[in-house]
């Protein structure tokens, strides 16, 4: 309704302008002052007075409306309450698909608004305190610390339902002992393989190199995070290959930002593996787009990325492909970063009870979680659905990769990590820096930023 008024008003302005412009030949003295400068000042206000009353009255009218009786069908058409959800493009469709079931049950209208993923994170902190935020928004677990510190998300008590979630997802959204979102999906990178070129899954990185040597392909492994685009996330399996990491990790207290381990021997040893692959030509310098294109068009044997590419693999590639966990580089399985996706609750929501109902009574159920997986494709974070998918090989592979991985740190200090780490890894990828130099520089930059 708001929008229509806007359009109507804009059309009016245009018409007024056209009228003023064509008024040239019209009757002289009337045109003279009808459009004097000052009419501009008030032209924005005239419709204001007319529209003000209805606009102001609208929300209270909705609230005061006598509660609908169940045998009163027209009530269902005019929602008695509504909640707003911000979601990115890949989640709008799934949410709009499941929302009618909630509306039918509770009479609550669900507005799903499209916001780009990065924009959700940036804008929630501005919009929520102003009372303009969504009631619920989709987000990644690594935002948790920042959003919680900003006081814009409310803790959620999952109660007994906590047992139904994949533990790593719950850990991801846990900040300082409270869970701040209802997780629904998890993700971690794994290794896509061109099975026309390499029929067997290489178990170790040496097998992988041998397989590449055997088939004469221009690019052995394409990993995003080379060429012109820093990407610490996709290169992290190398950082952790020998037990390294970013911050010291303790199972009980989480990551300790005061102990940066980016320049530890373990971390450097891992990045040296990457350096060697680059020097020997097994890992090419590719950004995300090119890494994907090369693999899809059969010019690369392996492609390291996450489950979000399953769709384009199925739809767009002319090759036969398979997916497996990343070939082992040391004694332990490769440990990628695990990300979790979930629904946050705005701490300033005016409809917190309904929003909570939506999350706990509706989202956290087998049917909705299954529907979300069907529409979205990311490995689910809801154990009953994970079990139901035991025969889905792709979900199993990514599930294994997730089980090997560690959650990306969700502390606010991570903001100071992505830039220096990605940039320095990019220099290793492009052969412009050694592993030791790059990691020392990254560690110093992170220490300077978080400690001052």
């Amino acid at each position: 309704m708001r929008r229509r008024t806007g359009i109507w008003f804009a059309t009016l302005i245009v018409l007024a302008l056209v009228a003023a412009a064509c008024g040239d030949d019209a009757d002289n003295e009337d045109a003279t002052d009808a459009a004097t400068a000052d009419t501009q000042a008030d032209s924005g206000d005239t419709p204001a007075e007319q529209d003000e009353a209805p606009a102001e009255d609208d929300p209270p009218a909705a609230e005061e409306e006598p509660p609908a009786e169940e045998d009163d069908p027209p009530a269902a058409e005019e929602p008695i309450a509504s909640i707003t959800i911000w979601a990115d493009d890949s989640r709008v469709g799934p949410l709009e698909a499941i929302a009618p079931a909630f509306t039918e049950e509770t009479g609550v209208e669900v507005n799903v608004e499209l916001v780009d993923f990065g924009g959700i994170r940036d804008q929630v902190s501005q919009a929520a305190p102003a009372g303009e935020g969504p009631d619920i928004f989709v987000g990644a677990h690594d935002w948790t610390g920042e959003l919680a510190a900003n006081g814009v998300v409310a803790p959620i008590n999952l109660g007994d339902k906590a047992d139904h979630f994949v533990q790593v997802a719950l850990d991801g959204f846990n900040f300082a002992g409270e869970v701040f979102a209802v997780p629904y999906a998890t993700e971690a990178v794994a290794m896509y393989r061109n099975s026309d070129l390499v029929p067997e899954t290489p178990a170790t990185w040496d097998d992988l190199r041998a397989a590449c040597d055997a088939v004469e392909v221009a690019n052995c492994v394409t990993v995003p995070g080379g060429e012109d685009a820093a990407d610490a996330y996709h290169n992290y399996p190398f950082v952790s290959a020998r037990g390294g990491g970013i911050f010291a990790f303790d199972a009980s207290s989480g990551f300790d930002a005061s102990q940066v381990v980016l320049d530890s021997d373990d971390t450097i040893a891992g990045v040296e593996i990457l350096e060697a692959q680059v020097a020997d030509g097994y890992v090419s310098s590719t950004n995300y787009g090119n890494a994907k294109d090369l693999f899809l068009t059969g010019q690369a044997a392996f492609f390291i990325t996450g489950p979000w590419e399953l769709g384009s693999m199925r739809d767009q590639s002319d090759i036969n492909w398979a997916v497996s966990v990343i070939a082992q580089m040391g004694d332990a399985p490769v440990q990628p970063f695990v990300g979790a996706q979930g629904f946050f609750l705005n701490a300033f929501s005016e409809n917190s009870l309904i929003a909570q109902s939506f999350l706990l009574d509706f989202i956290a159920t087998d049917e909705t979680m299954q529907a979300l997986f069907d529409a979205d494709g990311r490995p689910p974070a809801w154990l009953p659905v994970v079990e139901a998918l035991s025969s889905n090989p792709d979900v199993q592979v990514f599930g294994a990769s997730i089980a090997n991985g560690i959650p990306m740190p969700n502390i606010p200090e991570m903001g100071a990590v992505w830039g220096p780490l990605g940039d320095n890894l990019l220099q290793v990828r492009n052969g412009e820096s050694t592993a030791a130099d790059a990691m020392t520089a990254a560690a110093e930059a992170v220490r300077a930023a978080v400690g001052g």
Partner: protein
Amino acid sequence: MTAEHQSPPVHDAGLLRDAPLAPRRLPRDTPPLQRLTLWLRRSAWRHTLALLACFFSLFPIVWIVSASFNSVDNLTASRLIPSDLTLDNFVEAFTDDVSPVGRWMWNSFYLAVTSAALNVVVAAWGAYAFSRIKFRGRRTLLTSLLVMQIFPQFLGFVAFFVLAQEFGDVWAPIGLNTHLFLIVVYLGGAAGFNAFLLKGFLDSIPTSLDEAAKIDGASSWIIFSRIIMPLARPMLAVIFMISFVAIFGEFILASFLLKGEEQLTLPVGLQVFLADGYNAKWGVLAATALVGSAPVVAVFLFAQKHIIAGLTGGAVKG
């Protein structure tokens, strides 16, 4: 100023091989060969340069066109002439039910038209005052307006948030997530600069015209609307076009102030839906951008008529 009027005072014509001094139109009986060589000497280099510039202009565009007809969803690995031409991208762009591309185009279009039209009006008033009315502090005011305009408006997004919220409290249709608010933001953002642009042009219109009208008892409104503005039409067209293009493609403010797929403008919609993250749909993106550029080209063609008519009409000179 046409060629017939050239009656060259020829004291040093040959000195710098001064082409314009030679008669520009050849006599009717010039033999064809001579015509050709003359043309080559005089114009061929111009066309060569122009064609080079065309190549530069079109280079990325060709790839957008190619991608829009290509079934492979990537940009860099594709060939110029796609192996399998397809219209699927266009169909998908306009039929996908989650991304209302048509709606975004309309939003962008009417936002840009309205803002640009209002921009012209506000700038015309300001320019008229700066050019024709003597008041104290004129120069200082103009300079300070321009200096203020140097602040990149998009950096003030937090302030716009506060404003939108406050305005919305008073009158919902101009609050957050409304097109009206975006229109006034765009208006404010360009007012000073456009006024300056136009003032320069108005200064070139001789004041004798309005003084004569003043003697006849015309009010300043009459002088403004009947004498100055018709003469300034070419520059108004230029300002309209510049504003239209800027607002049609504006991205940062629109992405911050608009939410919900029905509300978005074309650039924001494209970014959010198609170019975001790892799942860029290049084909659809290119197809949409191609169709989306049409209004701008149309507006340009429309404005061009006025610009050229006005400029070559010589109304301004005197």
